[in-house]
């Protein structure tokens, strides 16, 4: 983060981003938009009819500083493509993308190299480890690109290797590591340059469920310490809900909803999102703030006070007032009563949609 940047400036800002694959895409897109009168769906259809592939359509979102922003979608929804647009691994067809206020679509090749050396880190689904380098060399490679001295870069590499819990495996080669260990190397390598912006492309998808959960937990720990601005791609709604500050749900190249985990679970924008969250136990994700009722000034003061706060999940709240029938007060972080909740409503909110 540059110190001169205004504090409310988003870390990443995407506006009207289009990524269309196929020859002549850059020319066809404005045509199609013209013919469709600006309607995105119709324009996309026109492009498809012309044999082009509109992988990302008119996508806009902001990622705040220190925010963990998850993009969730099925395969082919364009989620990995948008990540590659932001990291400029592919060139965007139309739109604007800014990182810390800097327009990266017009940035020169040299500038992009510089940004990647200093500011950006990326973790890949299949790890992308260099097979001919040891763990230590892999992690130190981005530092070598920065032209850091050998001793200095090996010291820093050792630091991040310790951070991801791979101490003792520095000399091993990728082929000698398990999947979980490989991704730890991938994470360490992406953190070596201490990037401000951290891209993770389905980092845990290729791992076994147990290892995946373990790495998710460690990832949450690391993020709690480092507070990076993160774009995290996944196809796993449970993973998204578990780690995200905010989630964008993509379908067929478009974003259908952006919201916090509880918004996604409790107020799905459409049936598609509802389908996704149908099997999710809401009690674990939704917090009391999402089902709070304002205090009725005329009502008599509540007879019981189980000590609920707005930050509690529905499950925790229900545990606390399992045996109560009257509405109970809910307090804010400062201890003041900010609303009421009826235990019956609480139980209703937990019903999984039929």
């Amino acid at each position, binding site marked *: 983060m540059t110190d001169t940047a205004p504090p409310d400036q988003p870390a990443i800002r995407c506006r009207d981003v289009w990524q269309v694959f196929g020859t002549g895409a850059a020319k066809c897109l404005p045509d199609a938009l013209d013919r469709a009168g600006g309607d995105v769906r119709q324009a996309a259809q026109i492009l498809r009819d012309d044999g082009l592939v509109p992988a990302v359509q008119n996508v806009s979102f902001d990622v705040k500083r220190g925010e963990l922003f998850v993009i969730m979608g099925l395969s082919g929804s364009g989620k990995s493509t948008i990540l590659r647009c932001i990291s400029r691994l592919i060139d965007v067809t139309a739109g604007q993308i800014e990182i810390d206020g800097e327009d990266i679509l017009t940035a020169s090749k040299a500038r992009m190299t510089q940004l990647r050396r200093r500011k950006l880190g*990326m973790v890949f689904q299949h790890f992308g480890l260099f097979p001919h380098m040891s763990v230590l060399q892999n992690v130190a490679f981005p530092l070598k690109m920065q032209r850091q001295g050998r001793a200095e870069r090996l010291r820093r590499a050792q630091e991040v290797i310790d951070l991801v819990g791979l101490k003792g495996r520095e000399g091993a080669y990728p082929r000698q590591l398990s999947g979980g260990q490989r991704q730890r190397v991938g994470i360490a390598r992406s953190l070596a340059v201490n990037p401000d912006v951290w891209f993770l492309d389905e980092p845990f998808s290729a791992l076994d469920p147990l290892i995946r959960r373990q790495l998710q937990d460690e990832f949450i720990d690391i993020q709690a310490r480092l507070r990076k601005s993160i774009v995290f791609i996944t196809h796993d709604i449970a993973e998204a809900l578990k780690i995200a500050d905010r989630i964008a749900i993509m379908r067929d190249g478009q974003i259908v909803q952006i919201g916090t985990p509880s918004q996604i679970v409790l107020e799905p924008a459409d049936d598609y999102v509802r389908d996704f969250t149908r099997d999710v136990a809401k009690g674990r994700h939704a917090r009391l703030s999402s089902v709070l009722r304002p205090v009725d000034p005329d009502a008599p003061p509540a007879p019981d006070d189980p000590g609920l706060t707005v930050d509690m999940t529905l499950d925790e709240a229900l545990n606390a007032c399992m045996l109560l029938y009257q509405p109970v007060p809910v307090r804010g972080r400062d201890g003041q009563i900010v609303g009421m909740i009826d235990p019956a409503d609480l139980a209703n909110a937990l019903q999984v949609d039929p």
Partner: protein
Amino acid sequence: MRVGGSTGRRPGAGTIAALVVLATGALCMALVPHLPWLGQFPDAWTLPMSAWIDTWLTWFLNLIKPGARLLSAALAYPMGWTKALLLHTPWPLLVALVTALGWYVGGMRLALLGFAGFSFVVASGYWVESMNTLSLVAVSVPLALLLGGATGILANEVPRVKSSVQTVMDVMQTVPTFAYLTPLLLLFGFGPVVGLIASAIYAAPPMARNVMLGLERIETDIKEAAIMSGGNRMQQLFLIEIPSAATQIMVGVNQSLMAALSMVIIAAVIGGFNDIGWEVLLTMRKAQFGDALLAGLVIVAFAIVIDRNSAGMARQQARHSRRITLAIIAVGAFVAVLAWLYLPAAGQLKLLVPVADWVDGRLTVFVRANGAALDSIKNTAMFYGLLPLRIGLDGAVLPFTWGFQWTGWMSAALLAASAAIGGVIAFQGRVAAGLLVPILAGMVETGIAELPWPFVLIGAGAVGWVAGGRRLALFAVLMLAAVLLSGLWEKALWSLYLSGAAVLTCAILGGAIGLICALSPLAWRVVQPVCDMLQTIPLFVFLIPVLMFFQIGEFSAFLAIILYAIVPMIRYTRHGLVSTPPDLIEAAVSSGATTWQTMREVRAPYAAPTILLGLNQTILYAFAMLVIAALIGTTGLGQSIFVALGQADVGLGITSGAAMAILALVADRLVQGFAAERRRALGL
């Protein structure tokens, strides 16, 4: 292959194509007696392509000759140095170095192989000749690697040139080895440098191919990780991508080495250099087969040691102990000092010469004793197999061989019988297959070398149409028409006949061996090392054993081609048959299929595309060997190329080489078309 539908449905492409070909064949057969130009393409209609190319190319070559001569002079230096280095290094030290390398790369097995191989070379008495050959390889391979590597990287970096690079390499692979030599001879003059440059050019494509393949196959994640680490393009390429592709690139180095060795030995035919290839040729010409065999085995020893060591380097595995490696070298150095004091120079060590003489003697005795039997093998194959294929039953069936004279009535009876059989098959619903029977009968009746040209053109077009649609058909017809116009048609048909006969034999024999190996792992354990060995041996060496028993002639050439070209057929057949997915086999077995039923109904159809690729390789191998076989007396294009080399006739050399390449390319594309069609049908 789309087989034609039965009555009531629309006829398939196969049926239409077969009908067209049958009609053409019948028409030609009826008209040739009246219109001789149908049977034999009139000379007056041909274009003097050889002469044009000769004029134009000679002019061009003369233009760049000074540069070439300069290069040749420059290359003579490194070659002289390596030669001096190899010849002045005491042989025990060299043997120790090879052994040590073997140990380092592959442990005890390769160390023993290296020791045995080079000790054999020492004992053979061909040490000086061998080192001369080796010095050629040692200089040409780095050149080839540089050339091929640069081409591969260029194709990878500039996607626009990729497809043209690929095409050029495809063509280079099919142009026969001798054809390279003629223009080079003109450019660089007689001498070892021609062989050096020819082998550098010949060995470059495998390297380029593997570099391209390796770079292409790197995981996207690795490439993107290199970009995201902030490397510039050069850093990405040289620090990440090329090392990541190292395994594939080492495969390229291995293939490049083998190609260079093969070419260096072939280049010996232009002579002027005291190397091992020349020694083989010389002894072969003098019919000293014991010596020829010995020299040939020296080449084989080289080939195997070089191949196994470089293949070992391509494998990713822990290297063996450095300490033992150094110890082996130390022992070698110690022996070298002793040798310097007490042992003779390697060139004078002729331990195996008595053995060679003994073999020679025994061989003479054997051939004399069994001459009649060998002759009868040869004559049987010639009179009842090769000759009818070449000039047709009407020309080959004579009272003096078959015991009767072929008459018009017999032709009619044969054709009628084939029509009847075809009719029965067609009636059962397989119309295309039914039509094929009289076509084949007609071809056997006429003989491949005497097929009317319209029939060949239309036949190739029809096969192309079935295998790959209109474009492939057009390609086949145009390419063959070019050969027709060049005036080399007769020779081309002759080459087609000999390679066709060899490929057919390979397909049947190799297919059967492949099938046996697929069924019995024990058989494969016996056959596999033989296949490995046959594939490692430079082409040239195949001529020695066939010459020993069957003297110079067509039959020997035929045998040499089969020896060399049968290997891919065996390998691919077996591989296709054993690589059926286990769940398919389990499904078949649980449906109650017997081993044979599983083989016929599940494995064979699944293996068809792979087997077709094997056939494709066999065809290419056969054409490659055909040219080498010209050395032991065949006619056809191979001979033209060889004659052109002798007379330094660039035009004839190029056109004959091109004609040969065209035949190979057309056959290659047709078979590949069928293979692709099969793969699509199976959804692979």
